[in-house]
């Protein structure tokens, strides 16, 4: 068997999968987005740009998503980096595996159930009561953008921790010693050694979290009390409530485009930041 044929054979399942599960649905979405809504909802074939002209009607949802997704990614990063650093560099090797498992354990339970648990924690009888007991007033936590942010960080943190952990684990500790021996204060070592060497993990983790957040709808629905409206929520409503599939398809196609643009910009920025290193620059 010729090597090229063998390669194609091995890649056939993946190719078939991508074709059926990604390319074809995307084509359907694109075709639908030029259609019009039937009288009772659904899709009527047409060739109209009306749905794209009407995108302004969901601008607020895009705006919310484009603020909360990068903010959520950044918050995840700020929390995940020190944790990954601790796990990779500082933690006792005997405990490391156990600690890593602890980071994954929440994934064993459905995000839906974990989000419901947060309703109890952030609801009036949870944390706010505790804060009131301490005499600091009773803040409203549940059904706020803050609650959505908590849910996002909680839900997506492991996706950020792992790539950074992998990057930092490969870091040669002698470099940290050398930096210190040469008189660099810890903060400068962080800026000039550990951070740049973890950038590949930061780039991967941020992309994973950001892309998933752009399509998020469950956490805003559950922890935002239906008051925080992401593009994902707009899509759910368009397909399941108003049954305006062509407009929903146009919003979905636009979301894909927006993601492509923001991810490209992000990767360009990372490339410049890392001085064009191969392991960081994914493009």
């Amino acid at each position, binding site marked *: 068997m010729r090597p090229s044929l063998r390669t194609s054979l091995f890649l056939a399942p993946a190719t078939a999968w991508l074709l059926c599960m990604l390319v074809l649905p995307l084509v359907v979405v694109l075709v639908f987005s030029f259609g019009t809504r039937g009288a*009772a909802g659904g899709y009527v074939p047409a060739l109209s740009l009306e749905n794209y002209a009407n995108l302004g009607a969901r601008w607020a949802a895009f705006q919310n998503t484009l603020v909360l997704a990068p903010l959520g990614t950044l918050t995840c990063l700020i929390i995940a980096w020190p944790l990954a650093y601790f796990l990779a560099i500082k933690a006792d090797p005997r405990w490391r595996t156990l600690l890593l498992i602890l980071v994954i354990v929440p994934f064993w339970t459905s995000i839906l159930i974990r989000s419901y648990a947060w*309703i109890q924690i952030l609801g009036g009888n949870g944390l706010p009561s505790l804060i009131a007991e301490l005499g600091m007033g009773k803040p409203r936590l*549940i059904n706020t953008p803050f609650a959505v942010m908590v849910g996002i960080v909680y839900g997506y943190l492991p996706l950020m921790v792992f790539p950074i952990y992998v990057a930092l684990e490969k870091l040669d500790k002698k470099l940290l010693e050398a930096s210190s021996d040469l008189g660099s204060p810890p903060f400068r070592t962080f800026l000039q050694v550990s951070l740049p060497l973890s950038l590949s993990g930061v780039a991967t983790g941020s992309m994973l979290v950001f892309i998933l957040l752009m399509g998020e709808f469950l956490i805003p629905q559950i922890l935002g009390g239906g*008051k925080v409206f992401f593009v994902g929520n*707009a899509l759910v*409503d*368009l397909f399941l409530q*108003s049954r305006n599939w062509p407009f929903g398809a146009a919003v979905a196609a636009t979301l894909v485009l927006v993601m492509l643009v923001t991810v490209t910009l992000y990767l360009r920025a990372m490339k410049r930041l890392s001085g064009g290193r191969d392991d960081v620059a994914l493009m």
Partner: protein
Amino acid sequence: MTTDRVQPGSKTNIRETKMTKYRDHIPAKEFLTHLESLRKGSISRRHFLAVTGIGAATSLLAASLPGRAFAQAIGDRVGIATWPNYHDPANLDAFRDATGAAVDVNVFGSNEEMLAKLQAGATGWDVVVATNYTISTYVEEGIIQELDLTQIPNFDRAATDPRFADPGVIDGKTYAIPRNIGTTGYCVNSNDLEGAEAKSWKDFWDLARDKLSGRAMVHDYQLTAIGNALKYYGYSFNSVDSAELADAEKLLIEAKPHLFAINSDYQPSMRSGDASMSMCWTGDAVQLQRDMPEILYVLGTEGGELWSDFFTIPTSAPNKAAAYALINFLLEPQMAAKEALFHGYPTGDSRVDALLPEEMRNSEILYPAADLLNALEFGAAVTLTNPERAEIMARFKAA
């Protein structure tokens, strides 16, 4: 309990057998005497069920019948698309035990969602529980079929208030038969009212923006969220007039920062005390008040929604025999009464009303005063497909 009389193999036999059992247990005259006692409240429902044997009939029947024999006739599975907290699992188990067909329950958040999935070609449901305002659309779209009433002998049109049964009849053909009815009002925790008045939809929206700011909930549902905002101005609950809808939208967007949530799952928040007031359906009010008597149910004096849920059979139903069997099983007055005890909605069927305990029949939540009831409107089909309402809902939620 003997099984020799039973001829397994058809659903007709199930029905006949069940009736036979009733007669076996107690003579008709004695049954009526007990029924009268139950009506007067001199015996409890439990006692009534015990002496008449009705409560035990189904389970005894089930225990005595070889379920598999029936499975050949109606299959081993029946799928139902319905609403949360709407069926007592024990009653569905009784159906399975009696017929061999396990009931696969799928619950939905709204009629719109149900319609969307059926339009998208979802199959596998034999029975769909749909609300009045969707029936005509389902028929136009060819999603549901005309019902063969001879297969549902437990449905008695004469016992049913025509107001609730009529939306199921289109061009003289019966496509849907009523299962139960209800209203959409609001529930409010009287402890948080501190003497403030809560009688109308005007009160609801004024309280939501002032005294109960941060503690009120609105359904995540175009029909009721927009409909009850329209009522603030005294417009029709079903209005699709642009100027009137614009007023409703203004009110919704003004109220939004004051709302605790836009969510149709309001029981948990009302129970935890996080929310003090919410748009509310009859059955939820009954369930809430059962545990928290301080929660009141208010039908706005301006009106609001009156609705009726129906059993329908989709044209795509894979197992129509089982669909008919399940509908007939659940409409049997004793069974319907058991279901009503569970979900807390009236059935609109006078035979079932007679079997309900005194406190349910006297409940103003279930059976509102005539003047309040007469002010209510059935949801109109036009709201289901009106694009403007959908856009208002999106702007309200995104604001």
